[in-house]
C-alpha cells in the first residue's frame, strides 16, 4: 500500500506550556481508515491540527513529516495554503466555532467550492445544495439560508463534512465528525466516507471517542494517552488490546442491557506517563 502520510517523532509544545502536548508520535497512513482513540486531552486534535500546521504559537518538531511528495516541515504558510483544504482537509471538532457566525452557512459552503474550482457562483450554489442533500440534511434550501447559530449540532457537523467533500482532498482528518448524529444518519455519513476511501483511494484519519465506530469502521487504531501513542491495533482486534488504558476504556463503556451499577472507572497509573522510546 502506498504511503500518503509518514510521521516520525512528532513533538508539539504550546506557547507557554510547561510540557509537550504531543511527545514523539510516529505513524504512517496509506489509503486506509485509521482511527485515533484516546483520553480527553491526550493530544488527538493537536496532532490533527499540526499536520495542517494550524497551530499558531506552538512549536512543532518532527524527524519526518511527509505528505505524499511534500516535506511539510519545509513548507511556508503560503505553500501550506495550497495544500490545506484542497489536498488535505480537516473536519474540526467544533463545527460552529469553525464557521463564520455572521454569514449564511450555504454561502460558506459554496465558497469552499469556488476557492478550489473555477466555476460560476450559480454552479457553486448548486454543488453546495447537492452536497448538503448528500449528507442527508432535510430541506437543504432552508438550511442554505440559515446562520450557524440556527442549525442543530448534527447539522453543523454535516455542513463541515459537505465542505470537505466539495474540496475533494486526498487526505481527510476527521475530528469527531459524527458525534452529534443519530445512529441512522451516522451510518449513512460513514458510508459516504467509506466510499471515498474505497473508490477514490483517499486516506482517512478518524479521531473518535466512539469505540463501536472505530471497531466497525476503521482498519487500524492508534490509542493515545498523555501525548503518546501507547498502542496500535487492527480495529477488529480492539477487544484484545493489552495496554491497561485501552482495557480500561473497553471496561468503562456502558452497554445496552447492562447492569446499572456504577461504570468502571480508570485507575490512572503514573507509569503510563513515562516516555516510551
Amino acid at each position, binding site marked *: 500500500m502506498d504511503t500518503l502520510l509518514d510521521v516520525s517523532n512528532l513533538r508539539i509544545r*504550546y506557547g507557554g506550556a510547561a510540557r509537550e502536548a504531543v511527545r514523539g508520535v510516529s505513524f504512517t497512513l496509506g489509503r486506509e481508515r485509521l482511527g485515533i*482513540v*484516546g*483520553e*480527553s*486531552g491526550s493530544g488527538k*486534535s493537536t496532532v490533527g491540527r499540526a499536520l495542517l500546521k494550524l497551530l499558531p504559537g506552538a512549536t512543532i518538531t518532527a524527524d519526518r513529516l511527509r505528505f505524499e511528495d511534500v516535506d511539510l516541515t519545509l513548507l511556508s504558510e503560503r505553500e501550506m495554503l495550497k495544500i490545506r483544504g484542497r489536498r488535505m482537509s480537516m473536519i474540526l*471538532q*467544533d463545527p*460552529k*466555532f469553525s464557521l463564520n457566525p455572521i454569514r449564511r452557512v450555504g454561502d460558506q459552503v459554496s465558497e469552499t467550492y469556488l476557492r478550489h474550482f473555477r466555476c460560476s457562483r450559480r454552479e457553486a450554489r448548486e454543488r453546495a445544495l447537492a452536497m448538503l442533500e448528500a449528507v442527508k*440534511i*432535510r430541506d437543504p434550501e*432552508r438550511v442554505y*439560508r440559515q446562520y450557524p*447559530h*440556527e*442549525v*442543530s*449540532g*448534527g*447539522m*453543523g457537523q*454535516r455542513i463541515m463534512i459537505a465542505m470537505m467533500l466539495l474540496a475533494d482532498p486526498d487526505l481527510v482528518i476527521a475530528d*469527531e465528525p459524527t*458525534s*452529534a*448524529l*443519530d*445512529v*441512522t*444518519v*451516522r*451510518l449513512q455519513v460513514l458510508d459516504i466516507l467509506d466510499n471515498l476511501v474505497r473508490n477514490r483511494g483517499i486516506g482517512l484519519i478518524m479521531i473518535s*471517542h466512539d*469505540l*463501536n465506530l472505530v*471497531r*466497525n469502521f476503521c482498519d487500524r487504531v492508534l490509542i493515545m494517552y498523555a501525548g503518546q501513542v501507547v498502542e496500535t491495533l487492527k480495529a*477488529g482486534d480492539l*477487544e484484545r488490546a493489552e495496554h491497561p*488504558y485501552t482495557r*480500561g*476504556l473497553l471496561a*468503562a*463503556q*456502558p*452497554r*445496552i*442491557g*447492562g447492569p*446499572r451499577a*456504577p*461504570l*468502571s*472507572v*480508570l485507575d490512572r497509573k503514573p507509569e503510563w506517563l513515562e516516555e516510551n522510546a
Partner: protein
Amino acid sequence: MSVSVDVHDLSIVFGSGPQAVRVLPGVSIAVQPGECFGLVGESGSGKSTVLRCISMLTDFWQGEIRIGGRFVREIPLGERCRTLQMVFQDPYGSLHPRQSVRTVLHEPLAIHKLDDREDRMRRAITDVGLPVSFLDRFPHQLSGGQRQRIAIARALILEPSLLLLDEPTSALDVSVQAEILNLLQRLRDERGFTYIMVTHDLAVVDHMCDRFAVMLLGEVAEVLPRDAIAGNQATHPYARELVGASLAYEGTRRAQG
C-alpha cells in the same frame, strides 16, 4: 428537593413571513420528580430546542411548561437559575473566550451571593475530573472534552434541582464519560436531581434513564421505558428503526466477544 417537569403542547416558530418554520408542532412530555428522562431522535428533530424552551433561553414559544407545578414564565430569573441549569451541546459556544475557568465558575456564585466560593469551585472542578490548576486556563487552552467538563462544572456549581443535559458526554472519552455518568447518578441518589438528557447513545439511555422519548421532525414519536431497548419493543416505525440500528451498531462486538 426534586421537581417535576410538565411540557404541554409546546410549539415554536422560527422566522417570519413566508420563511417562517414551525419547528415543534406540539410537544408534550411529563417528567417525574427525580426521574432521568432521555430525549433521542433524528438530528435536527428539535431536541435541543425543547431544552432551550424549558430553560427559557428561547422564550417565544407557545404552550405550557411547568417546573415543580409552577409555570416557568412565572418563576423569577434568579430562582430559575438556582432551580434549573443547562449543559449545552456545543461547549465552545457556551464558554466566553476571554473568561478564565475561574471567572466562569465564580460568576454564578457571586450573582447568587453564595459563600465558600473557593471551596465550591475546587469541588466542582475536581468532581468533573480536572486538576485545580485548570481554574486559571482559558477556553482555547482546553481540549474539546475538557471544555465540556467545565460546562458541566458550571451547571453543577449552583446545585440546581433540574439539569437539562444536551449530549453532555459525546465529546468525552468513555473513561471520562463513566466518571461523569457516575457523578450524575450519585447526585441523583443523594439529592434527588431531575434530569432531561439528550443523547444519541442508547447504551447511555439504558444506563441512565428511566424512560425516554424518541423525536422525529419536531414531534414525540413514542415514549418508551428503558427496558424496551434491549428487545426493541418500540412500536412507532421510526422508533423501531432507531432502536434497531443502535442494537446493530453495538451488536457486532457482542457477536465477537
